[in-house]
């Protein structure tokens, strides 16, 4: 193999000694590198979005939600909670009353919105979700100062406090201390039975829920569990139990265990333990579809880059036909010739892949590194090496010695690195107006190392395959014809 390496490495280099490597090699290496870098970056963004959404959902959602099939209320929930707690993987359990309600402000005389009402015990809920972390204001749903003062100045009954989703509050135009009316039930009018009168409950807004997850911030209100039970007249009963596990991925298995462990009577109905995956199935299957499409596109990107290698090699073989003839007269076998071109192509593939990996990872790092950077205008430092390179080309001012070439390469590297550092910053989804769509403020980046290794192997393999035909073509040149080739 030594002989083949010797020839191949020389062919990779430039004939004119301006740089270490010939322009054509640089273009093919660049093609592979850009392809690999794109693949790594795009996957990191997709994985980041998925992971970001997952993290956010899991901060807001229970891993498993237990309820009855008809979502009706059930009693004895403390007993059932302790039954669930016997499962090893269960970290925390929280009883919840989940319902929907129409809301309007006291000033308004029309229903403003229909929202989800989650009746929780803040302490227990905090063990299952990151509830209080997201609340701007008070999590005291029974005795905050807003409730006290509201009770003092109003003669109406105040049932308790409510934490409203931040965006919902903005939509309704309420501030802390405002009173919100919830329609709990429609009761028949005592005299005219065809008329329904709403059963109302008043809640004081004590805080805003800012989870950055639009579903919650837009649609949810949180009230105290006891208040909810009282409001619906379901004392000591709940309709949902939220469960957190040691690992969210265990949800499907533990959900089945919970259904087996928790006993409901025939009258109560069938338990239904749903996992967070089931609850968010449409979203995550959409993400998966997106990922499959992206992987196909990524494979095509690398394939295109490998075509570049094949055409470079075919050109090299054409250019070196005479050399091949000479080498055959010197006693190089077909195998020698085949290997030498395969080595040349493989080196391009390998350098391109490695360079692309480095570039991709650097871009990933820059896109996720939050620090003050010099303005992207500083990317103009790139004119320095461009200027010098032009000078070298035009005026031949700098002697073409290895030391100078090395210094020049180093200068390029530093200038490009600095330009990238200035120009590539985390992308703010809020600035793009996309934070509601993607429910995140910053484009998330998550590098999956397993995938990086996989893409490296795949890319190298594709590049290697791309060398086969040109190398075979070179090996099968007839020595005499090759020698006479002009």
């Amino acid at each position, binding site marked *: 193999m*030594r002989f083949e390496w010797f020839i191949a490495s*020389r062919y990779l280099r430039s*004939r004119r000694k301006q740089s270490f490597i010939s322009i054509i090699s640089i273009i093919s290496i660049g093609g592979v590198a850009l392809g690999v870098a794109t693949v790594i970056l795009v996957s990191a963004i997709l994985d980041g979005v998925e992971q970001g959404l997952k993290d956010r959902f899991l901060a807001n959602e229970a891993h498993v939600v237990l309820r009855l099939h008809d979502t009706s209320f059930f009693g004895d929930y403390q007993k059932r909670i302790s039954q669930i707690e016997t499962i090893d993987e269960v970290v925390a359990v929280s009883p919840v009353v989940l319902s929907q309600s129409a809301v309007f402000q006291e000033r308004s005389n029309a229903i403003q919105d229909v929202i989800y009402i989650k009746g929780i015990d803040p302490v227990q809920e905090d063990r299952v979700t990151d509830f209080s972390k997201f609340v701007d204001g008070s999590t005291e749903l029974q005795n905050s100062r807003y409730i006290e003062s509201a009770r003092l100045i109003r003669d109406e009954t105040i049932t308790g406090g409510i934490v409203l989703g931040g965006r919902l509050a903005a939509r309704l135009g309420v501030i802390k201390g405002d009173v919100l009316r919830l329609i709990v039930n429609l009761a028949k009018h005592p005299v005219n039975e065809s008329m329904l009168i709403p059963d109302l409950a008043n809640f004081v807004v004590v805080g805003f829920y800012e989870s950055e997850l639009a579903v919650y911030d837009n649609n949810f209100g949180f009230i105290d569990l006891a208040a909810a039970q009282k409001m619906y007249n379901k004392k000591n009963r709940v309709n949902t139990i939220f469960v957190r596990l040691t690992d969210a991925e265990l949800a499907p298995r533990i959900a089945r265990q919970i259904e087996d462990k928790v006993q409901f009577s025939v009258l109560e109905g069938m338990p239904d333990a749903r996992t967070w995956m089931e609850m968010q199935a449409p979203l995550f299957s959409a993400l998966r579809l997106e990922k499959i499409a992206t992987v196909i596109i990524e494979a095509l990107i690398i394939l295109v880059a490998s075509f570049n290698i094949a055409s470079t090699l075919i050109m090299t073989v054409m250019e070196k036909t005479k050399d091949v003839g000479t080498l*055959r*007269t010197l*006693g*190089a*076998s077909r195998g020698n010739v085949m290997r030498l071109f395969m080595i040349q192509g493989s080196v391009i593939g390998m350098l391109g892949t490695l360079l692309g990996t480095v570039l991709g990872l650097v871009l990933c790092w820059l896109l996720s590194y939050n620090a003050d950077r010099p303005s992207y205008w500083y990317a103009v430092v790139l004119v320095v090496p461009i200027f010098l390179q032009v000078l070298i080309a035009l005026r031949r001012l700098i002697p073409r010695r290895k030391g100078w070439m090395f210094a020049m390469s180093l200068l390029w590297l530093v200038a490009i690195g600095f330009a990238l550092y200035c120009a590539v910053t985390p992308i703010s989804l809020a600035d793009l107006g996309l934070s509601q769509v993607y429910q995140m403020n910053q484009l998330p980046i998550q590098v999956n190392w397993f995938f990086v290794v996989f893409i490296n192997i795949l890319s190298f393999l594709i590049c290697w395959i791309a060398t086969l035909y040109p190398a075979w073509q070179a090996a099968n040149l007839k020595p*005499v014809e090759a*020698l006479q080739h002009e």
Partner: protein
Amino acid sequence: MNSNVETLIRIVNLHKSYYDGESELPVLQGINLEIYMSELLGIVGASGVGKSTLLHILGTLDRPTTGNVLYDEQDVFTLSDTELARFRNKEIGFVFQFHHLLPEFTALENVALGALITSSNNKSVYKEAEALLDYVGLSERLSHYPSQLSGGERQRVAIARALINQPKIVLADEPTGNLDRRSSEAVLELLWDLNAKSGQTFVIVTHNQELAQKVDRVIQLVDGKVF
């Protein structure tokens, strides 16, 4: 010519035809020839008569249509492609009209190439190559690229390259065909000197009458046969 001659190559009833679709173009039509150890054989003949084809078949670069080429009584064309390449590497040196040096490699590297194919000891190969370049009078030109050498110098590098594996036979196809008079003379002197010193066999295809008179034996090809 020596009196007790030993046969190095025996060519038996060699035919070579080229095919262009259906039509057959016979080039060599029954060549019988013996080439002796250490001789300087000249092959002359009109243009297109098949001199180069014969040389290529002798050099195992091309296969005959029918007939045999026996080196030391072994039919080389029964060898596999890889074995043939190895045989060519060890036993045969080539010098062409056009030097055919690889442009990306220095004079020294060009000379060493033939030995690098199989050798694992690069150091001794380069030492050998250096000695050969010294012998052909180019010890000052080791690290020059072919484009930096004159025509005569390139041909001398090509001769040094042909000798790197100490082949039994050197095949030269119009070695001076592309050189001016002075360079030609220098190259020829070199070949004569080599033949005298190393005892290698030289087969030289040429148009040059002057050259043809200086060799040990001349054969003439006419109509694809030895005349």
